[in-house]
């Protein structure tokens, strides 16, 4: 008895030691970023380092807006991210409903086609996709980014997996009550699939907000660029203004942090119930 108790205490100590190490590894870069963003540039790399500077240089956060059109970049990214996320969630959940709850000819073949393309990396067809968009005169427009991000097979797959877990009897009962398929989708499936939708919103929001290669290929004009491109531009142009780079980085992280924290309680549930575990 005594032996198990002491060994369980040792176990606890090991677990918490690991947790502290984990939090340290995960958070230190962010803490360092925050700390450097309110320092004088000359103090960023001072050793031994001070986590909390003697003097907070809040001007760093006002200077960055004058060095590059950061506000334009942020608004562009918001616009793209919101449109892509709304389109993605609507069209995916719509299609997923048919794949999961309706019977029609060619359902399995069509779904297999969808799944097949998940395995084809985007990077393998980005070149012909770019040339096609150029033919449509969509290069250097936001529409190009929207078109290539909004209709992913992944969203359909994720939503369908979740709908599979909702009993068919529920839809049958609604049909007998005279609800149309569109009514069932809107009144029953959408409200029930909140965890899956949250998961998809997080994924889509994060992917679009953080996308780099897509905007790099398609957006050339400065007034169209996204935060990621802008930040990269900033880093290249002012490569030794470390404090400003860190301040701009902090600003670029905030929107994602807000969305993530707002939706994260649904997240593990969403991943679990959408059967991403295969």
């Amino acid at each position, binding site marked *: 008895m005594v032996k198990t108790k002491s060994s369980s205490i040792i176990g606890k100590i090991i677990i918490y030691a690991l947790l502290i190490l984990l939090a340290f590894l*995960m958070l230190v870069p962010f803490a360092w970023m925050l700390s*450097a963003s309110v320092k004088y540039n000359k103090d960023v790399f001072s050793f031994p380092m001070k986590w909390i500077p003697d003097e907070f240089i809040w001007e760093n956060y006002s200077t960055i807006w004058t060095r590059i059109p950061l506000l334009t970049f942020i608004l562009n990214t918001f616009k793209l991210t919101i449109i892509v996320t709304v389109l993605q969630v609507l069209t995916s959940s719509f299609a997923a409903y048919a794949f999961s709850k309706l019977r029609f000819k060619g359902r399995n073949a069509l779904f297999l086609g*969808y799944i097949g393309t998940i395995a084809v990396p985007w990077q393998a067809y980005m070149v012909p996709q770019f040339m096609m968009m150029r033919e449509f005169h969509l290069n250097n427009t936001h529409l190009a980014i929207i078109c290539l991000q909004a209709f992913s097979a992944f969203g359909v797959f994720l939503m369908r997996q979740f709908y599979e877990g909702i009993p068919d009897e529920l839809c049958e009962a609604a049909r007998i009550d005279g609800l149309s398929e569109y009514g069932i989708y809107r009144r029953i499936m959408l409200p029930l699939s909140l965890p899956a939708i949250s998961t998809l919103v997080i994924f889509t929001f994060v992917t679009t907000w953080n996308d780099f290669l897509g905007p790099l290929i398609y957006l050339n004009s400065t007034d169209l660029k996204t935060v990621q491109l802008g930040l990269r531009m900033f880093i290249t142009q002012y490569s030794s203004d470390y404090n400003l780079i860190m301040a701009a980085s902090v600003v670029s992280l905030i929107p994602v942090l807000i969305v993530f924290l707002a939706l994260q309680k649904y997240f593990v549930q969403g991943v679990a119930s959408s059967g991403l575990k295969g």
Partner: protein
Amino acid sequence: MPSQANKSAAAAATPVKKRGMKKETREALIAYSFIAPNFIGFCVFTLVPVIFAFVLAFMEWDGVHAAKFIGLDNFIRMASDPNFKAAFVHTIVYVIGTVPTTIICALALAILLNQKIFARNFFRTVSFFPYVASLVAVAAVWNMLFNPSMGPVNQFLASLGVENLPKWAAGNDTAMLTVIMFSVWKNMGYYMVIFLAGLQGTNPELYEAASLDGANKWQQFWNVTLPQLAPTTFFVTIMVVIQSFKVYNEVYMITQGGPGTSTLVLVYQIYNEAFIGTPEYGYASALSMVLFLLVLAVTIIQFKAGEDKDAPKKKKHAKKAA
């Protein structure tokens, strides 16, 4: 737009039925109307380019002059292209370095964060945050932390008395290691969430039975946890492998493919051939085909290897459903 058009098409289909349209046809029309908005976008912007990519791989095209069919010349050219050799080898090295490390770290994290511990949600959020954080921003921090001359990591190592401080992203030998470390740190939180979801589906009775039989924690992990997690591990492995073959951003942000060509990877070369200097769309597409075939081959091998393990898993699922 397409969604509205299809809705009205389906609405039009409903009265038609009263004039005697078959129930099945009507149902199929409704189903297609659900799928159409996504499927049309998917066809135009994904399926067509995928097919186009296969054709382009056998052509020579700079985007200005007419495209010319050149058969297998693009692929023959690869054999004598030192950049391709470098990119191919580095992609494989990156995959081998990243896949097992990511899976082991993610699994360890998930098991740790599945315990009944204080502030569990905080720790889960913390481990997931690097995945959602903007790549450009976190890469900027990494580059500063691992700055060979001024960075805190090397300052710390120096204070411990380490000589020959590693040059990290700037060193020929350490550049790839730096990229791999960064990728694992950035992405393991995502796979941890999937493992967590898998762990929550495990059967607690099996652990009770195992501990009654005198199995210690380590034995329980090998004989109860791992077998139950097999489907999750399979899924995660496939995802990590595919993601790793596609690596580009991490390399671009940390090393720009350098120093020299020491971290040049396939997607980096594809981008360079197509978008830097004179465009070589045909050659870039041929390189894309190599990437695609690599991913396809490895995925098929994994599915074949997973088949034997799959059989008992399906039985278990059937039992659960019953």
